[in-house]
């Protein structure tokens, strides 16, 4: 009981911190983890060791729920929501933005229940599966990359008055997608081989890249937009049923699990694969499954760190989030139930905060034009990047912004930007990373 009382305030604090931070538009989980690490250095003496992991877990849960709000209301998604942004925007433009946010939240709750239900799978099947699959991960990532590119191909025959116009119409965004993929891959190879960010901020090497690829282009796109957000209605009920929720949980669960397990694969990419695999249709299903996928991706990836078994003595966690937080704590056997309890508590609280923050955001948007919010967000992002990584980081961010703007303004998938991590990780796993770095004269 004593331990519960020690941990509880930090779970609540983590949920609140994650929720507040995620209100900033287009912030990625890597950036949030970086802020958390900086915060931890300040509160290190205050936080007892047993509360560190629950604090970070509740922060991630809060983030996975509340980042729905900027994503839906001001069209500012991170990469994980790139598949669902259009349905959410459609709801927003018909005055049903709040309903879209609530549906996403319902999906998030479904994701939490799925994580609990998958516990036997995590401990009995996943470690053995990882032992078999782990050494072939580079092949799997290669297949994911091929699928990402090929699934955008072809897009109809195109229309136009001339042959060139028809060709351009049919292939422009496809080539833009391939170009985005290639440029992102090069950017990732440069940053991972020999970053120009100063060593003292090594843990935020990737931050300017992600901010530039995802956050800033979204902000620019919305600043250039002259759309006005119509009046939003706050309903007492939402239009859904258990069957839809079940279908969405199935599809979102697959996408989220793929993203949680495979390195450098995010919920956006997982969502594409799952959406095709389950032939998902309908905006409502997309939105709910997006919520499921997001929670399973963010929370599940961190939860896997605590799957400690004889086959996986160091856990199965992967990804930048775990790498950033590894210096702070080490998972121990037996912590999984504590983490699951934290997820349930933080998830319920986050859903309630989503409802409240959603209404608050609507009130704010009535008083303040969303362009102003975007300008504030842009200034804050520039301030954070320059404060942490100085001019070098700003330059990297600028280059990444240009690359990230290609899919936004040429209407191809933003998931192609994930080549920034997919390609370097796959090459390193295959053993070719150093050879490529040598080829680029980055050794």
């Amino acid at each position, binding site marked *: 009981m004593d331990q519960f009382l020690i941990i509880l305030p930090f779970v609540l604090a983590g949920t609140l911190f994650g929720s507040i931070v995620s209100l900033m538009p287009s912030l990625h989980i890597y950036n949030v983890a970086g802020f958390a690490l900086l915060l931890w250095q300040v509160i290190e003496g205050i936080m007892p060791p047993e509360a560190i992991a629950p604090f970070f877990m509740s922060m991630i849960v809060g983030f996975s729920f509340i980042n729905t709000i900027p994503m839906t209301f001001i069209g500012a998604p991170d990469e994980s929501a790139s598949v669902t942004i259009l349905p959410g925007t459609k709801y927003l433009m018909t005055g049903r933005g709040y309903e879209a946010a609530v549906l996403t939240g319902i999906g998030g709750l479904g994701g939490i229940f799925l994580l609990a239900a998958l516990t036997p799978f995590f401990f009995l099947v996943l470690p053995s599966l990882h032992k078999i699959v782990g050494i072939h991960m580079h092949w799997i990532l290669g297949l994911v990359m091929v699928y990402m590119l090929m699934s955008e191909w072809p897009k109809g025959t195109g229309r136009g008055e001339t042959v060139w116009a028809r060709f351009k119409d049919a292939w422009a965004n496809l080539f833009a997608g391939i170009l985005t993929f290639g440029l992102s891959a090069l950017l990732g190879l440069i940053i991972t*081989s020999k970053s120009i*960010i100063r060593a003292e901020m090594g843990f935020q090497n990737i931050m300017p890249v992600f901010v530039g690829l995802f956050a800033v282009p979204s902000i620019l796109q919305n600043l250039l937009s002259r759309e006005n957000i119509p009046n939003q209605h706050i309903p007492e009920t939402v239009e859904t049923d258990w069957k839809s929720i079940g279908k969405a949980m199935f599809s979102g669960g697959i996408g989220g699990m793929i993203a949680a397990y495979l390195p450098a694969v995010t919920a956006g990419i997982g969502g594409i694969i799952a959406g095709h695999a389950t032939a998902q249709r309908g905006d409502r299903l997309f939105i709910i499954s997006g919520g499921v996928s997001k929670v399973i991706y963010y929370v599940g990836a961190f939860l896997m760190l605590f799957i400690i078994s004889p086959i996986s003595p160091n856990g199965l966690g992967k990804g930048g989030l775990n790498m950033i937080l590894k210096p702070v704590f080490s998972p121990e056997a037996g912590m999984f139930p504590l983490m699951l309890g934290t997820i349930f508590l933080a998830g319920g609280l986050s859903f309630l905060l989503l409802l409240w923050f959603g209404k608050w955001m609507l009130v704010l948007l009535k008083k303040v034009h969303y362009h102003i919010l975007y300008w504030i967000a842009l200034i804050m992002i520039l301030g954070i990047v320059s404060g942490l990584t100085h001019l070098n980081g700003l*330059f990297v961010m*600028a280059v990444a912004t240009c690359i990230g703007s290609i899919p936004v*303004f040429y209407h191809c998938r933003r998931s192609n930007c994930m080549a920034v991590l997919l390609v370097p990780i796959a090459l390193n796993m295959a053993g070719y990373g150093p050879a490529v770095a040598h080829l680029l004269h980055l*050794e």
Partner: protein
Amino acid sequence: MSSSGNADDKNMLTSCPQCGRFVDSGTEKCPDCGSPIRPEPEETLPIAPLGDGTHCPSCGKFVGAYERCPYCQAEMKVRLSLKMVRRIAMGGALIGLVLLWFGAMMKQVDQIHVGDINVNHNMATVKLEGRLVSVNIQEANNTFKLALDDGTGRINLSGFDKLERFRKALGDGFPREGDKIEVTGQLNITEKFGAGMFLSSPERLKVLERFEPEQRMLDLVTDEDTGRILIVEAQIIDIRKTRASRNLTLRDDSGTMSLTVFDSEFDGLADGAVKSALDKPGSIMKMLVKVDSFRGNLQLRLKNPRTEGNLEVIGFQTVSPAAMRREKITPLADLAWKNSGDFITIEAVITKIREFKAGRNIMLKDDTDTALLVVFNSFLDSMSKEKSDLLLTVGQKIRARVKVSQYRDTMQVQLFSEKYLEFLEE
């Protein structure tokens, strides 16, 4: 039916606009009424400037910020800002990436000290410089691990599944313990294992200063050499087996010193000749050793005995007490200046014998001073009766190779082998 207006579609029919007769589309004049047959104009797509809203005013469907409606192809009046942004994005991406690449190539990797590493350095690519304090090779896993000490701290460098690659690239330049190296890599900091670095490429590891161990005479090895790696060339004059090790007494022209070889080290030796020599008094060997200290006494330990070249058999010579006669006799007065653990040869007369529970305290006297010789019952029991009786005879003169030891601030000597005890005539 209507012509698509495509000149290649010659077999298609069209109707005369005047009389309605069906004629080939390629026909210029109607054969009936003579009116010119004009091809129907192509369907032109409506070009209507759209507003800035998200719904197409032509078909009313939701399209977002597209230039052309994907449903009805109504073309949106493209704003200058959008075109400019596209061009800036494309150009900026290409030029920026090239500049970033050049910048990365030109950038010097930050060099830091191990002692300055903190959690913020996690995943940073840095350069470290220092000496290797250990080299651990795991052939079975194709892995090697190095420990680097730069004077401010120690860090582990790991080459998982990279041993073969590094050996192939570096050859004889593969780092050894004691080498001064410079290494570039990505820091990996965990709460469990602390700071470490993964070595991915042989090109990022440079040996700045090769460690060449010094060859030293045994008598010149002092306490200040503790931890140092040296080469010694000596004869094994005595081997005493304990439960888990062998204590070898080495001797060269300057003196003697103890070498401890644990059973695990001995059993791991692949070379049969070396193994056999190590187990045989009289073997003369050249060895790479590390100076160690045990309970205040200096001793030697084999350094990487499995590595080829670190243990070499030079020859064999039977150990005899006669050889001891050629050794320098140490006056008992010099005992105070000797270090505990040193081996000396003395010549003295037994003046007094006092029995204690575990053995005998034998007082010795030479022309310079007196000294205490401690002989335990176990040693006496291992001797022949004749020799033990002589040793316990007051007035007997002895010459012996003894080990200096210290007990409660008193220097004393101990016999370590019956072979190095001679009874002289008065």
